[in-house]
């Protein structure tokens, strides 16, 4: 290998790099934001700030997010040189759990077509983990109680749990297993016909408006179920 080769190589790579960066006129303060919403928050909002460090105005061709749950908005469609602004990404948490990563793709033009991907990472608080969220009996199966384990996460200091069933044919009993852990025992009165219900799990946290969780139960089978209200009992201020 010729000793001059590395120099040539470096020159090529450097010029490609220079070319790629010269065209960018929007400087982003951060293109990736990590948010930690609190228990009870309905949304997580990320502010992606930018500045036009070029000499010509930049126009936003399109701003769209990776999913319907994240609304991305720009305050202005055109950014003059030297002007600053931000793209606001509002992530509707809904019933999601865990760490959610959503992206917003911004396409700008004038002078060049530059696509920037903004990443919003929402680390949702660990609340109650319910395992499993669904228990069932097949028609004719012995109506023995089945267990749902509930565990409080470190961000969720609940001390007590109460459980109500939307369908009175399913009986529930809560026992405390250990600090922050419970066992919910569910049992259908009978398994002769198909029926379903939802369990509303109500912890004592947050004190002012406890967050509700749900589990589902059913007796499955080919027999048409008697009309039973299966939706969880909604409370004002809940989701």
């Amino acid at each position: 290998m010729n000793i001059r080769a590395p120099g040539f190589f470096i020159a090529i790579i450097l010029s490609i790099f220079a070319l790629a960066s010269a065209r960018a006129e929007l400087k982003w303060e951060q293109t990736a934001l990590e948010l930690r919403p609190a228990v009870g928050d309905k949304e997580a909002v990320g502010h992606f700030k930018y500045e036009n460090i070029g000499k010509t105005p930049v126009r936003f061709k399109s701003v769209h997010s990776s999913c319907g749950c994240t609304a991305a908005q720009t305050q202005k469609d055109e950014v003059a040189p030297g002007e600053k602004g931000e793209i606001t990404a509002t992530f509707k948490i809904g019933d999601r759990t865990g760490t959610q990563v959503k992206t917003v793709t911004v396409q700008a033009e004038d002078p060049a077509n530059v696509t920037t991907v903004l990443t919003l990472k929402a680390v949702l608080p660990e609340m109650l983990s319910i395992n499993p969220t669904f228990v069932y009996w097949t028609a004719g199966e012995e109506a023995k109680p089945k267990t749902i384990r509930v565990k409080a996460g470190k961000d969720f200091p609940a001390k007590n749990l109460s459980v109500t069933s939307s369908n009175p044919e399913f009986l529930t009993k809560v026992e405390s297993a250990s600090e922050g852990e419970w066992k919910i025992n569910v049992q259908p009165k009978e398994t002769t016909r198909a029926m379903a219900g939802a369990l509303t799990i109500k912890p004592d946290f947050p004190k002012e408006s406890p967050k509700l969780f749900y589990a589902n139960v059913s007796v499955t089978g080919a027999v048409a179920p008697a009309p039973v209200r299966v939706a969880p009992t909604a409370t004002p201020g809940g989701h």
Partner: protein
Amino acid sequence: MNSRVVRQALVLVALAFVPAIGQAIYFRDKVSWQSPIPASESVTVVQARAWGANAVWLDARPDEEFARDHVPGALSLNEDHWNELLPQFLATWSPEKKVVVYCSSQSCNASREVARKLRSEAQLKDVFVLQGGWEEWLKSKK
């Protein structure tokens, strides 16, 4: 000198195969070697339709898209209103049914997320993601 570089490079290239193959053997059942989604977790439109009444179709797209149009008989189940929509699906579910989850196209993540939650949280078996999603189903209707 060139041959020295090549010789050494070849040795390294060959040596790397040893741990690589070992790891591949360890992962042999955990990876889909032919297509991006594990074979046992996805299904083609043709296959899903062949299941007929035994299949339950779930639309993982946002509410507005579901309202506009959806697979006839499909139920809406998305992450935005998971708690509200899950019970009505589970009320119709029984162990012999096959669950087919779809969303906007192969690369959309919602159907995979919904399928994952059904498998891990609700512990359902036979949950499949529709290959090609809504678009593929539309194509098969013609």
